[in-house]
């Protein structure tokens, strides 16, 4: 039996006190424990940013990579060994900004991994510039007259791209978030969980209380997760009511299944065959 404590790490956590990331970290541990996934069976991959530091703060295999590139790296890891259980921790800047192209293509490929986007609607680690999800009008040091670009809607874009698991969590609702992470990991295919995460240092707009007032749990609204049109409609809701939970879920063949590499075991476990190769070489 895996316990939450199995994930405790002695490495110093350096997030700001009160940061929404702590809630996400707890829910991750709880979900892993609930799924009986021990640290050594888990590979966490992240980009660069506050969110992307997450893997260091629990015990597991981890690859903390480059800003924006976590999903491409995870895709490669899956090609090498499709049996890996991969969770990606990314930020809104990391995933939807610098990494925008990989976000779209990981969805198109339906890479079997769980993507947690710690969406604090700001660039935290670089001290508070606007991110793609910052709401129009948000004032920052580098956007003194307010953000002017349309806020990036990850859920709608993911649905448009054919994602098979699209959910929103809130780091202030640990129970739900834990359930979502479990469901995401269980889902065979690409799972997006965009997590509303207050940044106490740089986002004075989207605070805990701002979210608390608005969050609506779809499960309690009896939302049917196989209703694509409805999911799409819900994905555009951002105002007085913000839906949380699984918007849409659909089972589809995964990337590595479609590649046709899952039946004979992971690519890295196959045998090198010199005779076969020599035959090809000698036939030239």
């Amino acid at each position, binding site marked *: 039996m895996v316990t939450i404590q199995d994930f405790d790490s002695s*490495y110093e956590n350096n997030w700001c006190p009160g940061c929404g990331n702590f809630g996400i970290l707890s829910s991750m541990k709880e979900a892993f424990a609930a799924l009986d996934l021990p*640290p*050594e*069976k*888990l*590979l966490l*991959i992240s980009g*660069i940013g506050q969110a992307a*530091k997450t893997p*260091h703060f629990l*015990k*597991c*295999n*981890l*690859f*903390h*990579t*480059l800003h924006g*590139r976590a999903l*491409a*790296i*995870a*895709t*490669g*890891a*899956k*090609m*090498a*060994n499709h*049996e*890996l*259980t991969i969770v990606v921790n990314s930020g809104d800047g990391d995933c939807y900004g610098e990494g925008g*192209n*990989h976000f*779209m*293509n990981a969805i198109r490929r339906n890479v079997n991994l769980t993507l947690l986007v710690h969406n604090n609607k700001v660039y935290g680690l670089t001290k508070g510039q606007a991110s793609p999800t910052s709401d129009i009008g948000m004032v920052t040091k580098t956007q003194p007259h307010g953000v002017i670009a349309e806020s990036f809607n990850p859920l709608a874009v993911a649905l448009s791209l054919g994602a098979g698991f699209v959910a929103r969590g809130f780091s202030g609702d640990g129970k739900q978030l834990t359930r979502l992470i479990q469901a995401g990991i269980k889902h065979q295919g690409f799972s997006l969980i965009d997590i509303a995460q207050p940044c106490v240092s740089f986002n004075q707009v989207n605070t805990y209380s701002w979210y608390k007032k608005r969050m609506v749990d779809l499960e309690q609204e009896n939302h049917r997760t196989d209703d694509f049109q409805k999911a799409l409609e819900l994905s555009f809701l951002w105002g007085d009511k913000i839906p949380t939970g699984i918007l849409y879920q659909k089972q589809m063949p995964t990337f590595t299944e479609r*590649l046709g*590499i899952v039946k*004979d075991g992971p*690519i*890295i476990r*196959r*045998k*090198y*065959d*010199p*005779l*076969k*190769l*020599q035959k*090809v*070489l*000698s036939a*030239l």
Partner: protein
Amino acid sequence: MAVDITVKIAGEAGQGIQTVGDFLSLVCQKSGLYLMGINDFESRIRGGYSFFQLRISDQPVYAPCPEVDLLVALNQKCYDAYHRELTKEGLAMIDIQGEPIANQAAIPIDALAAKAGGKIASNTVAAGACLGLLGAPIQILEGILTDRFQSKPGNVLSMNLSAARSGFDHVRDIRFFKKFEWKMESSKGALIDGSRAIALGALAGDCRVATFYPMSPATGIMTHLVSLADEFPIVVEQAEDEIAAVNMVVGASFAGARAMTSTSGGGFCLMTEGLGLAAITETPIVIVNAQRPGPATGLPTRTAQGDLMFVIHASQDEFPRFVLAPGTPVEAFEITKRAFHLSDKYQVPVIILTDQTLNDSVYISEKPLVAPQNIERFIVNDSQMESPSEYRRFAVSESGISPRALPCNGKALVIATGNEHREDGHTSEADSDRIIMMNKRNAKWPAMLSEMNAPETDHEESDILLVGWGSSKGAIQESADLLRKQGMSVGCVHMTDLWPFPEEAVKKILEKCSRFFVVEQNSTAQLGKLIRGQTGIAHDGAILKYDGRPFFPNEIVEGVKKHLSMEKDHGNHSRL
């Protein structure tokens, strides 16, 4: 060389030059001849000007020849463009109505093809006619056609057989001054282009994951690899861009697969950040940069050697890497195989520098391509550790190399980051850790250097040495031969192992000669500058070409003579 014939097949893109070229090359190979054929085409799919220039010889050849003996012009436009390259007695085969003029052999290619069963067979007619002119027996082509078409439905095979025969027969009475007696020896080696050699070298290096974003002249490597992927334990994936391509490879390698990506300059630019990630996380990767002229999009389908200094210094800050540049398909095969080994052994990135000429040209590889009996891996697992729970991915060692475990492969946790880190892999901002890790990575240099092969030399003892790298190897060697035949003391030095720079070996060679010229396909003599920076020895002149076309041996001969006569004009030679 008793036989040394250049056949140029020229036509529009889409006219099937490649088919004619393939047939001729295969016939030559199967007859025990040597050959080297360059592919020259534009960045378009139909129309324009392309050619395949095939040099056939009874001796090994590794360079093209500018003088054309037989021009197969698939249209009038191409005849007009290229007939001036014909030697005095050369012949141009062309499908024209009316009287052929001097040096022309008018052959009703389309009509013969139509008679044989369809215009689609006109390339086969042309091939048959060529072989007839060259004096080859038609049987070999017939065999090739049978192999290729016998499983095709309908009359495809018979149409092609009669097309070949009709072209062959049609030229019976045309005299071609370079017709020769075909000895019909056994094949001298594999018929192979650089792209395929790299693909096969990757399999021989046990590459398991390959990614790419299409880009000339690198795409061919992956097309070959894809065609082999069903038979071998390898996945090939087209990425959304080059950034994804390189990072996928880093991820695959982190997870345990030997992995490679290939691209050209513009794509390499986009890979430089990922290159640094591989370096700081000590994740082995192989990147092929198939050079073409730049800057930016430049000349997408042409050849160049302009990226040497870029790939040696690419990515921020400093880290050990290998840079290797093959000059022939055999070298491409061997170097690619070795690249995976070196990358795995030292946990560093390896960059293979090739170019369009090497990638797209066909050669007869004299040396056999040999699959290694087994693959030495440099990976540890729990059973090789005293205490897996205390495993530290970046444990300091004298060699700088730390035992490398794989994630999710036992109790040992693998922790890695693109930030500077501690031995256990966690991010650290302490200056002590920084120094330890920089020193650890740099500690690999000496052993890496000891892996570097000394340059290959020809007549190393000569007064004058020609120093080059990459696909111009053949042209340089041949030019040295030519100069020696003219009584000059000229040798050559071919560098494949460029970084870490084999300083001692190069110094030893260059100190002996009285002068040396670098021969490069760029405009600033990059290898020359590298040699100067690394050894302190300055080249005495540079023979440079940067028009996108490969060197012809005679251009180098002329270059050498020009330098020497300039020296004469400007007083005595003294080394800088």
